[in-house]
């Protein structure tokens, strides 16, 4: 015979199970975590986010990037430097862009380089265009189909969920990927500015060592 205590225990377990089924089906409390709101675009067209407008204006490969101080050593890419020029303007209030990254057709993500001396997390003023250049060191066999992504939330710690994110197809074709992998170009690295930035191709000289 089942005693009253056992019946009470069964009742509690049953109630919890039914409640679990209910909360699984109905989003009683939405705590977010639904992923970012992706706004897609192409090179040369503006992507409108809730907090900023973003336009990729140029993409080019490089083997070397030289820091602004001319006596510092140039940085050679492990693969290829993907140099992405971007126009940014905040829509309602100044915004700090936390990350820019590339993603390949397999979903693998490539973070912007710190040692390149290019832009990392530019501060963007409201209504004023900020010009930024982001640089990524990407393996030579993974250039085709890359997309550029940028957001104000820190992507490295999963803070881009439930917020706008710009996703721009860099239109790197198979032919581009083949020729870009062999590039020997060297540019002077730049980060960001309120003045338009022009990439300056340079000639490197060897040090005595």
């Amino acid at each position, binding site marked *: 015979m089942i005693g009253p205590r056992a019946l009470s225990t069964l009742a509690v377990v049953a109630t919890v199970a039914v409640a679990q089924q209910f909360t699984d089906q109905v989003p009683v409390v939405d705590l977010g975590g639904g992923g970012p709101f992706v706004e897609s675009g192409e090179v040369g067209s503006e992507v409108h986010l809730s907090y900023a407008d973003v336009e990729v204006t140029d993409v080019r490969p490089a083997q070397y990037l030289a820091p602004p101080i001319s006596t510092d050593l140039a*940085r050679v890419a*492990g693969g290829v430097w993907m140099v992405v020029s971007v126009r940014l303007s905040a829509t309602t209030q100044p915004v700090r862009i936390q990350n820019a990254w590339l993603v390949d057709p397999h979903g693998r993500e490539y*973070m912007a380089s710190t040692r390149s001396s290019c832009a990392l997390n530019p501060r963007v003023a409201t209504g004023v265009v900020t010009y930024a250049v982001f640089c990524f060191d990407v393996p030579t066999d993974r250039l085709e189909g890359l997309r550029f992504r940028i957001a104000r939330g820190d992507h490295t710690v999963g803070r881009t969920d439930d917020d706008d994110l710009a996703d721009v197809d860099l239109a790197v074709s198979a032919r581009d990927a083949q020729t870009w992998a062999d590039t020997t170009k060297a540019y002077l690295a730049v980060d960001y500015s309120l003045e338009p930035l022009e990439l300056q191709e340079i000639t490197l000289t060897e040090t005595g*060592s």
Partner: protein
Amino acid sequence: MTDREVVTGSSSRRGRVRDFVSNRPNPQKLGVLGAALVLVTAPFGGLQSVAEEKTQPLELGQRIDIGPFYVTLEKVTQVSDLEPAVSPDEEGTKLVVLKVVVVNHSDRAEFSNLVRDAIGADHSGLVPWETNQGIPLKVFNFDDATAYNEYINPGQTYTLALVFQQDPGTDLDLVTFAVHGYSFREVDPGTLEPNTWILDSPPLAEGHVPIEVKP
């Protein structure tokens, strides 16, 4: 009729169990409790076997999977200077350079510090750097001699130079190196930070390797 005969059947069973348990020595009780806990945690992996990580003898050219990266120690060299990358804080102090090839074999960009922090040494004659004394190894890109401290993107390969300062009187035959691995933690329960790598112990590989001496 005895007292034992007048108690109900269920009470009698419960009493016998209670007597049986109370008569067990404490080590047996603890053992049974431990076994019960393992069974209770079975749905969460409590019965999964613990992988036995045996420390391998360290060798030059041996590719070691430390978690996000393959690390291959190619060469160890003692030099007096490593210009233009770095010089010792004081003249006479030696520099030991570990040339390692690093491959990010994962699908995510991972920070290069994971390589630096996976390397240990014993009887190394370590002389701390004047700046950042708690970090014995400075890291440079072998191909351009610049400091290297950033994300290594997936699929990317770098040759890095890990450099520490060494007392010139150190017996190089006694120096041993260790390479540790990492375990992936999806969410750190302390900080709630996602995707962290936790350094494992003991090391994956450890031992003495030849140290080439250059003036």
